[in-house]
Structure formats: structure tokens, C-alpha cells
């Protein structure tokens, strides 16, 4: 097993880096697995990793139609925070946060998790009430959080326009110091490498075209490249494509897939040291280690699988960024892109059994999936291993949309994220 | 105050105007456009005028109901434009198509109640007449650069081939909305909501700055 370290780098530099091992194998799938994970994004890979590493289920395959981590994992704005309002989601995201805090070491792969703090700005009295409510709830749930006034906000982010002259002046913010950003691709790769090390087969460029269902129980999947592959349990973790896959299994989900856009500026020297988000002015930004301002746009209103959205969404976002950070007016936007986010009516995910026995879905993360990656993978793995939902996953059953036990996180989910 | 009764509909109608001794204040009243006009430039690419205190009436009815159409024509003295996005002008009455079952009737402010009453008197069946004179005002924009200002402000195509004289479009205007009617080659009328009037006035001043803005009182 190849351990990564600075010393390893030095050693390999003497052999011109010719002897690095593959980070993962490129296996031909077996006929049957204990668990098949459909979807090799961050959540699917994390699920496989924890299944193998922590729950001892190593006869596992992850089947990915494209390349590992190529969906929303590759397209998000990398924000990690756990300051959600309701107990159920706060516990889930905080569970993820705790895993984030040791993830690089656990994976022996630097996911560059940078706890630089996150400000959620308030611009109206109601914003401030919501902030106070959320921070109070966070603290009683054991999640770090503070309510700041405009002056304190300005001390943390001097370049933010905290004057009273703005159309919607900053009145204050919630502040979660442990929040931050991570290197999104590295998260997928780190989990993939870890899963592979523990024996998980990562099958790329292979699309699951259907489920094999007998008497209401899933027994495997049909693939475009390797035909039928059988499994005792199947976990479907395909984000924006969840509705499409659910239809294959014969049911609908309470979600819609929408375009979610993001953009980056050209790289500039370090100037923004925290994550700044504003629901009201409707934009958020952080600065990557490479120097790009990473800016999230709002979600487009229509169902869209095109990985692109409408231009006014980008315009509104940039107006918001210039409004919040007037000094960025002359900085330039480099690139924009879009992801496909599967959004639930209550802005919370679905981690759930389904009408098909042994078929489990983990989806509906909407705009907030990245931050939950390790937590989502962990509780989903626990659920798959046992065949019963983990207690933290329990409230996120898809059947809450029948009985009405929704967990409305629109406020905390915010702009996007 | 009267209650209009006809076979099917019972609605409350009132003359909402006080006597002439009380001056109405249009949405831009406080901007004192008369002084602005006096002090400001007399020539420029864009000319602005608030057609203040006009009477505006929303009329809703079924355009496929010939009886209602003729009743409306009788009351207004002009047939409703039933072609989408068109308008008619007859004397001091203009009617803008808003939607297949909605028109905006614009008359001099003092005539609004009379027209309202006439419409109630003539119409029957399912219809709605609402005096909205206080809620809207009319901005008249004209001049050589009027199209340039509109292109900054609205997303509809204002090229004469697509927006001929007489056409009416309800659309966005900056971050608000307007009912835009081309009233001449280089003249447009914008019907705008009262509460957005200041914002739009600010916008128009900004958008026309490079061409020179002439304000008429």
C-alpha cells in the first residue's frame, strides 16, 4: 500500500515520479456483489469507502457512467458548513463536519479542507431573526456559531460594503468559524482511492441502464458495458439523475432536477479569507487557494439536465457580488458552468428505503450536497450494511412527503447552498 | 357612491375624486418636474414628460362575447382592440390590449368615473371594471435617442419593424415593469406603477444621461 507523505514525494522525485502506483484499479466487474452503489460521485464513493472500511462490507462495486467525481462533485462551490436550522439536518451536517475535520488524515489524501469560517449575512430584520434563531439552535445542538453585528462582520471581511449606503445594508451575520471550503475533486479521489484500497471495485464508463427487480425486490443492475451484475442490495446515489433512475425502478420521487450555476473570477492575490453568503442580496463567494473568487449563482426555476442555466441568473449573481464587494467591479469573470441539482420541496435530502425492497436511494441534496459528502456516505453506508436506516438518516425518508414530516431548510439552505 | 346592479353582477363603484379645490399629487409630484424643466437643458436626445393624473381603468371581459364587445364599444366610443399587443386611440380615449381578457383604458383624469359608470351601464354578464388611476402614471419618452434608452431598459425588440406605432407591450423595464406603447416614430408612452415611479425616473435619468435629457413639465 502506497502511503502519501512529503517524504514519499521526495523519494519519488529521485525516480522522476515514474513509480507512483495507480490511485485505483480499473477492474472488470464480478458477477455479483453484496452491495452495488450506482453513481461514483463524492457521496457514492464515500458510501463505498465507509462500507468497506468501517462496516466490513468489501464486496462492493461502484458503477459510474462517466468518470469518478465528474458530476456535481466537480461542479460545486466547495463550501462546507453545518449551521442548519432543524435538529435533523443540523445533526446530519455536523456529523459530516466532524468527519471533514479528520478526513485528510483518515484518507491519507489531502482534501485541502480549510476551516476559514463562513458568514451568512443578514440584511433585513427578518434575516436577523432567522440568523438568531439558527445560531441559537446550532449552539444548543453543539454546533459552533455566533451572531455578529455589522461592525464585527466588517472586521472579519473589511472589503465587504458594510456601510449604511447599500441598497440592503448589512445588519449582521451568523458566523460559523469551523466552516470552510475543501478541494472538491480531491474529495472524490481520496474516497475513491480509499475505497479501492479496501477492495471496492470502481467501474467507470459504465452506465446502469436498468434495475433487475424480482417480486418487488432488487437483485441487481443492467449495465451498458458489462450486462447484468447482481447484488444483494443496491444504493442509488446519482443526484440529478435520481428521478430518471427512480422511473426505471417504477416509482417517482418528490424532487426535480434543476440547473445550478456557478462561476469563477480570474485568479487574484488573496483578498477574501472567509466564505461570505447572502440570501437576501442573493450571492455568495469564497476564494480558492488558486486565487479564483468562487461564486455561486441561484438555482434556475426549470427542470434541466443540460448542465447549464439561464444567463440572467449569472447577471443577478454578479450584481449581488458587486453590490456586496464594490471593489470587485474591475475584477473579471473567467468561467461559468452548471450542475444538475436534485431538489426536494423542503430543501433537505432523501436517504431512504424505496418501494422496491433492498433498493435504497440517497439523493435530493439540492444545492447543499458537497458539504455533506462524508456524513452522507457514512450514514448511507451504515444503512446499507444493516439493511435498516441509520438513525440520522431516518428523518430523511422519502415517505416524509406522505406523512408530512418535512424538514424545511429553505432558510438555511439559502441562495444555493 | 352607487351600487351598480345589473342582472348578474353587483359591484361597488364610487367616484374617487374630490372636488377641484384639492390638488392631486401624481407619483412624481414631489420631484417638481416644472422646476426641473425650467432649469434643465432644452435640447437633448431624449425628452421626458409625466402625463400626470390621467384616468386609468382596467377592463376585463370575454373577448369572444360579441355583446360585451359592443357594449364596451358603446361605453367607450371606440371598439376594443382584440388583436394582441395593439391599441386604439379615439379622441381623448385610448385603449391598450393587455391580455386576451384585459384592456387598459386611459382617459383624462376627470373623465374616469364617467367612463367607469358608462361601462357598468352598458356591460352585462361576467366582467370587471376597476379604476386604477391612483396606482399608475404615464411617462412619455421621445427624441432621437429614445430607442437607445429603451434598449437599455427593456428586453423587447423596439425596432420599428417589430414595434410599430400603436403596438403595446407589457414587459419588464429595468427591474420593474411597464406597459409600453409606441405613440410615434420616436415617441413611447410607459404606463408604470406608482410605487416604482421614483425608481424608474431615476433609471431613466441615468440611462439617458449620455444623450442629454430634456424634461417637460
Amino acid at each position, binding site marked *: 500500500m502506497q502511503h502519501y507523505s512529503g517524504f514519499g514525494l521526495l523519494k519519488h522525485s529521485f525516480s522522476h515520479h515514474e513509480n507512483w502506483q495507480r490511485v485505483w484499479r480499473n477492474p472488470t466487474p464480478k458477477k455479483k456483489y453484496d452491495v452495488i452503489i450506482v453513481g461514483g460521485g463524492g457521496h457514492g464513493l464515500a458510501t463505498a469507502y465507509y462500507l468497506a472500511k468501517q462496516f466490513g462490507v468489501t464486496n462492493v462495486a461502484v458503477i459510474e457512467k462517466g468518470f469518478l467525481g465528474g458530476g456535481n462533485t466537480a461542479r460545486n462551490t466547495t463550501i462546507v458548513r453545518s449551521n442548519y436550522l432543524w435538529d435533523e439536518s443540523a445533526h446530519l451536517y455536523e456529523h459530516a463536519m466532524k468527519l471533514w475535520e479528520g478526513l485528510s488524515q483518515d484518507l491519507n489524501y489531502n482534501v485541502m479542507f480549510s476551516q476559514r469560517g463562513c458568514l451568512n449575512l443578514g440584511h433585513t430584520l427578518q434575516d436577523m431573526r432567522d440568523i438568531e434563531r439558527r445560531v441559537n439552535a446550532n449552539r444548543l445542538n453543539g454546533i459552533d456559531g455566533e451572531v455578529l453585528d455589522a461592525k464585527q462582520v466588517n472586521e472579519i471581511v473589511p472589503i465587504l460594503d458594510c456601510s449604511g449606503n447599500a441598497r440592503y445594508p448589512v445588519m449582521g451575520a451568523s458566523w460559523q468559524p469551523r466552516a470552510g471550503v475543501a478541494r472538491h475533486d480531491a474529495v472524490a479521489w481520496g474516497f475513491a482511492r480509499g475505497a479501492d484500497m479496501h477492495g471496492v471495485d470502481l467501474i467507470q464508463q459504465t452506465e446502469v441502464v436498468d434495475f433487475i427487480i424480482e417480486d418487488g425486490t432488487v437483485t441487481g443492475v443492467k449495465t451498458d458495458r458489462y450486462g447484468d451484475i447482481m447484488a444483494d442490495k443496491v444504493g442509488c446515489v446519482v443526484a440529478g439523475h435520481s428521478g430518471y433512475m427512480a422511473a426505471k425502478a417504477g416509482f417517482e420521487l418528490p424532487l426535480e432536477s434543476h440547473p445550478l450555476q456557478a462561476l469563477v473570477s480570474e485568479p487574484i492575490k488573496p483578498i477574501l479569507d472567509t466564505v461570505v453568503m447572502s440570501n437576501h442580496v442573493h450571492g455568495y463567494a469564497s476564494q480558492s487557494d488558486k486565487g479564483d473568487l468562487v461564486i455561486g449563482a441561484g438555482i434556475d426555476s426549470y427542470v434541466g439536465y443540460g448542465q447549464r442555466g439561464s444567463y440572467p441568473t449569472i447577471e443577478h449573481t454578479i450584481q449581488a457580488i458587486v453590490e456586496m464587494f464594490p471593489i470587485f467591479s474591475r475584477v473579471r469573470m473567467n468561467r461559468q458552468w452548471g450542475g444538475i441539482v436534485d431538489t426536494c420541496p423542503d430543501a433537505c435530502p432523501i436517504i431512504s428505503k424505496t418501494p422496491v425492497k433492498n433498493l435504497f436511494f440517497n439523493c435530493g441534496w439540492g444545492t447543499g450536497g458537497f458539504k455533506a459528502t462524508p456524513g452522507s456516505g457514512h450514514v448511507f453506508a451504515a444503512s446499507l450494511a444493516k439493511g435498516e436506516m441509520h438513525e440520522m438518516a431516518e428523518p430523511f425518508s422519502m415517505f416524509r412527503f406522505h406523512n*408530512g414530516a418535512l424538514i424545511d431548510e429553505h432558510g438555511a439552505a439559502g441562495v444555493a447552498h | 357612491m352607487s351600487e351598480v346592479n345589473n342582472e348578474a353582477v353587483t359591484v361597488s363603484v364610487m367616484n374617487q375624486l374630490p372636488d377641484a379645490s384639492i390638488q392631486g399629487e401624481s407619483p412624481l409630484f414631489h420631484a417638481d418636474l416644472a422646476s426641473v424643466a425650467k432649469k434643465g437643458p432644452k435640447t437633448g436626445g431624449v425628452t421626458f414628460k409625466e402625463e400626470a393624473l390621467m384616468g386609468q381603468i382596467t377592463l376585463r371581459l370575454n373577448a369572444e362575447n360579441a355583446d360585451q364587445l359592443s357594449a364596451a364599444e358603446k361605453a367607450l366610443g371606440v371598439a376594443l382592440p382584440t388583436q394582441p399587443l395593439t391599441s386604439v386611440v379615439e379622441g381623448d380615449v385610448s385603449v391598450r390590449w393587455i391580455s386576451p381578457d384585459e384592456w387598459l383604458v386611459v382617459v383624462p383624469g376627470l373623465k374616469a368615473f364617467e367612463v367607469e359608470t358608462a361601462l357598468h351601464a352598458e356591460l352585462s354578464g361576467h366582467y370587471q371594471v376597476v379604476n386604477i388611476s391612483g396606482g399608475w402614471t404615464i411617462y412619455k419618452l421621445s427624441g432621437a435617442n429614445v430607442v437607445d434608452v429603451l434598449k437599455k431598459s427593456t428586453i423587447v425588440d423596439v425596432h420599428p419593424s417589430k414595434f410599430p406605432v400603436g403596438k403595446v407591450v407589457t414587459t419588464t423595464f429595468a427591474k420593474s415593469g411597464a406597459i409600453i406603447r409606441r405613440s410615434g416614430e420616436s415617441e413611447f408612452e410607459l404606463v408604470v406603477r406608482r410605487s416604482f415611479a421614483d425608481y424608474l425616473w431615476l433609471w431613466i435619468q441615468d440611462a439617458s444621461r449620455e444623450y442629454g435629457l430634456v424634461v417637460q413639465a
Partner: protein
Amino acid sequence: MFYIYCPYCGEHREEEEFHNQGQAHIERPADPDSCSDEEWGNYMFFRKNPRGLHHEIWVHAAGCRKFFNVTRHTVTYEIKEVYKMGEQPKVVAE
């Protein structure tokens, strides 16, 4: 950004004038009181969400304020058909 034909105004307008209102042809159950929780939940929340042709409602919010149906491809974003409320689509998924 979409360019949407409003069947009431009779011309194309920019997407900014419209609001999307979600999947079309969802009928409110005639007798809600007799619905089970599951049926009512399905009506409120469960959606087709297709990758392909989607029948959806748009409203010409900044224009004539009329609601109408659009058949749109959710990958290419092509609008295949626009039709009024109460009408059925001619272009449907195979």
C-alpha cells in the same frame, strides 16, 4: 436563456418575462378528503422530472399574466410546443 412563445400575446418573449410553475397536467384530486396521505403527498410533491420531453406550466408574469403549457426538452432545452391551458400536447415522449 429561453425565448418563449406566449400563445396569448402571439409572439416570442424573453424568459425574464416568465415564471416556471413546474410540471403540467397535474390535476388536483376531485375529492381531497377521500385521498390517503400517500395520494395527497403524491399529488403535492412527487414529480416525473424527466430527462427528455417535459410538459410544464409557465406564466407570462411580466406580460399578459396568463398561464400556459410548454413542452420542452430538458437536455437540449428546445421548446417543442406551446399550448394553452386545458389543451393536450401534440408532441409527447415516445
